[in-house]
């Protein structure tokens, strides 16, 4: 088993896959650990928000629509920086900050001119465009993750209505809640499964950058995105007696199942970082499930006990299968 690029190249030459005499990969391809990517991504995000504030104070736009040209210019500048110099870490970070600022400006403009569902849908289109055009791995990955979040919010707002964070005591039926959940997450589960199964095919094409970012972004969203798309109405501060039945409160429990699936997918692509993210996501979803109003703790308890039983039975069956 080979463990680095040089020895793998040698092994591929020995097998006749590569022609004799091909050179090793450049050193710049050395693996960047996830935590350095996370540090760069978070710093880029924060820098982007401050760039947007700087631009907003500098140009003092008086209406949301005036953010559109600002956003487009910032995104164009980011694209140019990425495209011109792909080796400079400074320009990469500057481009990421400008890109985040530009996208935030466009979302701000959309928010002022359409409904919450419309804003989420426009954000989805914007993120998909960023995934397709941005010539940078981290920018594509962030776009893929937020495209999934925007997709989830679009469906949720369209099906169950937008609600204020602490405001309306919304009642959502079990059927609506489950239907919305399946519509949101089933396509993402299928997409993740499809991308993993066809991995060796798309790695051999020029779409590998988009596909890899999409796969990682989808798995990250399956692990934690329910926190970004949480059923706000279930957090209503209405007294218990006035609390209406809101089955959106089931979403965090279903999110645990998604996190377990994400963990399994991450294992299949040997990504320990995504496994860790999915473990953290599953634990957070359980605590989220505890605090959400909308259904009783007794029902939640029964659901957790049932899920635990199913999982333990599954482990016994798998073990039996392994012995046979």
């Amino acid at each position, binding site marked *: 088993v080979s463990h680095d690029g040089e020895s793998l*190249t040698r092994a591929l030459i020995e097998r006749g896959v590569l022609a004799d005499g091909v050179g090793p990969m450049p050193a710049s391809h050395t693996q960047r650990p996830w935590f350095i990517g996370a540090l760069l991504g978070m710093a880029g995000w924060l820098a982007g928000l401050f760039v947007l504030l700087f631009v907003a104070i500098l140009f003092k736009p008086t209406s949301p629509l005036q953010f559109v040209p600002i956003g487009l210019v910032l995104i164009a500048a980011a694209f140019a920086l990425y495209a011109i110099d792909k080796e400079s870490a400074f320009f990469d970070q500057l481009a990421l900050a400008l890109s985040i600022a530009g996208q935030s400006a466009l979302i701000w403009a959309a928010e002022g001119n359409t409904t919450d569902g419309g804003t989420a849908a426009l954000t989805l289109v914007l993120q998909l465009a960023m995934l397709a055009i941005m010539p940078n791995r981290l920018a594509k990955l962030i776009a893929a993750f937020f495209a999934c979040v925007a997709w989830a919010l679009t469906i949720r707002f369209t099906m169950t209505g937008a609600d204020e964070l602490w405001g309306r005591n919304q009642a959502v039926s079990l059927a609506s809640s489950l239907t919305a959940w399946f519509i949101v997450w089933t396509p993402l589960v299928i997409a993740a499964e499809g991308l993993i199964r066809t991995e060796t095919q798309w790695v051999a094409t020029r779409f590998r950058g988009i596909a890899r970012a999409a796969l990682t972004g989808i798995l990250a969203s399956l692990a934690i995105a329910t926190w970004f798309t949480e059923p706000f109405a279930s957090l209503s501060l209405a007294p218990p007696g006035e609390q209406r039945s809101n089955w959106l409160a089931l979403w965090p429990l279903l999110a645990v199942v998604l996190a377990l699936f994400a963990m399994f997918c991450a294992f*299949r692509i040997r990504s320990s970082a995504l496994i860790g993210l999915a473990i953290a996501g599953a634990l957070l979803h359980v605590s989220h499930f505890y605090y959400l109003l909308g259904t009783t703790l007794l029902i939640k308890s029964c659901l957790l006990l049932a899920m635990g039983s199913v999982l333990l039975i599954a482990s016994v069956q798998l073990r039996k299968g392994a012995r046979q």
Partner: protein
Amino acid sequence: MDRRELDALAAHHNLSHDDVQAAYGLVDARPGAAETRAFLIQLSRIAGVLSFGAGIVFFVAANWQDFGVFSRFALLEVVLAISVGLAIWQPAPLVMGRLALLVAFVATGALLALFGQTYQTGADLYELFLMWAALGLPLVLASQWSVAWGAWLLVLNISLSLFCFARPVGGWFWFAFGRGQLQLVELLLIPTLANFGCWALVEFLRKTRWRQIATAWLGRLAFVVATAFATSAFMIAIFDDGQQGIRMALGAFLVVGTLVSAYLLSRRRDVLPVAAVIASAIVIGACLIGDNGTADTSTFFALALWFIVTSTVSGRWLMSLVRAWRQEAP
């Protein structure tokens, strides 16, 4: 090799589908059927046990009136007794013993919560978690399992966070640490040192026969939590003018941070803790800029520039450490 390197290799050599499959086979990029099954068995076991434990906690917290207090105590005690019984029958490090002890640890916390709720002991919330960590320690020790230690570390840190930020009056820690006389920044030294202590212990145990339990992720978790507490202390010191006479505490944080950083750089093994220290320094620097500026263009420009420049420089430096330390690794 990870997927990024494999993608780069495929792009560099313009590999075909068959070539990529050959490369994936050579580096064992995809788990086989037996490995997948073993992973699924472990995943469903741990998730099932944790789900079951959470279900019991939720059930007790539901305070179901048709299920009296006596019955609730009986339920938890039965769960605890069965778990301990299973752990004695199939002792750790056997899987059954480990899982049973993890359930016993969860049940201990639920039992303490029910006790406090029923008898209104007047204990602060942090004391519940502290007591849970203390009483659960033998179970975690017996489990010889990093997952159980991770759960214990989580409980301990919840207790320390509640003690520092909720500022309770009373309890062991309150008597032990200044009886309310200490500033928040000074109090935050306790969880910082406790977590650095846990990290140091893991580092030490990794050189002994206990390295199977003292896994790298456990040490990393303790280190990151310690750094988060230290960062919050500096942020509070910067923004809260009410914190007086804290120079000694800030000096202590700096001394600890310097010693830890010096150790990390001399050990030349794991870059993640170095990245955590750098992330902390970037955040503290941004807080200083924000505190000394006003909400105008120059401050926002300076903050944006600060994040871009510091992350660029530190990203490059960390990558150089990754390359160098990887080459030196045995």
